[in-house]
């Protein structure tokens, strides 16, 4: 079963900002995200979200000699009933100095993503992102 990948403008702009610094890794990051279509169970599940499955995937950047622990953090929501993945955030480990900054960032992204889904601004194909 293939999952649809929902990419919203909020994620798109975050991804583009990231690629400004890590352009050599674009291909490997994209292929990693594409691979979730067939295998959405990659990464660690956030404990305590109950029926909602939110995952965090550590992405290495071999082009910059960064291991998965020092690489990117990619957060996405898996909706099994709707057969869909929602891309929430992607950032470099260490970008946020404190965990509360990450929380604020995720909250802001989710608010924007919700507005974008409700106003049909998101695409179902990550390739267009």
């Amino acid at each position, binding site marked *: 079963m293939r999952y649809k990948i929902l990419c919203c403008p909020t994620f798109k702009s975050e991804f583009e900002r990231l690629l400004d610094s890590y352009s050599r890794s674009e291909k490997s990051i994209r292929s990693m995200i594409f691979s979730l279509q067939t295998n959405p169970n990659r990464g660690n599940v956030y404990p305590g979200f109950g029926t*909602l499955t939110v995952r965090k995937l550590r992405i290495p950047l071999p082009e910059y000699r960064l291991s998965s622990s020092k690489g990117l953090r990619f957060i996405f929501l898996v909706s099994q009933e709707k057969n869909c993945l929602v891309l929430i955030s992607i950032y470099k480990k260490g970008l946020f100095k404190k965990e509360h900054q990450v*929380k604020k960032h995720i909250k802001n992204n989710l608010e924007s993503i919700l507005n974008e889904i409700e106003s049909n601004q998101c695409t179902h194909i990550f390739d267009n992102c």
Partner: protein
Amino acid sequence: MAYLNAAMLEHSTIKSYVRDFKIAEMIAASGRILILYIMLISILYKNKKMMNRLKSSLEENENTHLIEDISKIRDGFVKLYELSHQIRFLIPFSRLLENAAIDWDDFAEDCVIVSDTEIKNLLTRVNNAL
């Protein structure tokens, strides 16, 4: 009652692990390298087991004390990692301490996100809007 006893036991185990970091720092300051080696091996050996315990505790119930303890453990690993650059005998532990500090930092981030009810609500709303 049995559940309460188990929870208290769990909490005391976590507190004792947090205390181990303070003891390791004191031993490092006193320069007793052999004891420090034993202490660090013990801390690193318990590392994954402790994280899994805390993860399962968080899945069962939200607990702000646990989040504080997780941050303390993360800070403990960060301090030991910094010490590993100051004390040359600790260089072999440097990579292990760095990886543990990153793992616990990720875990602390995850806990803060999961414990936020607004994020939970937003996720539910996003899921319903699909």
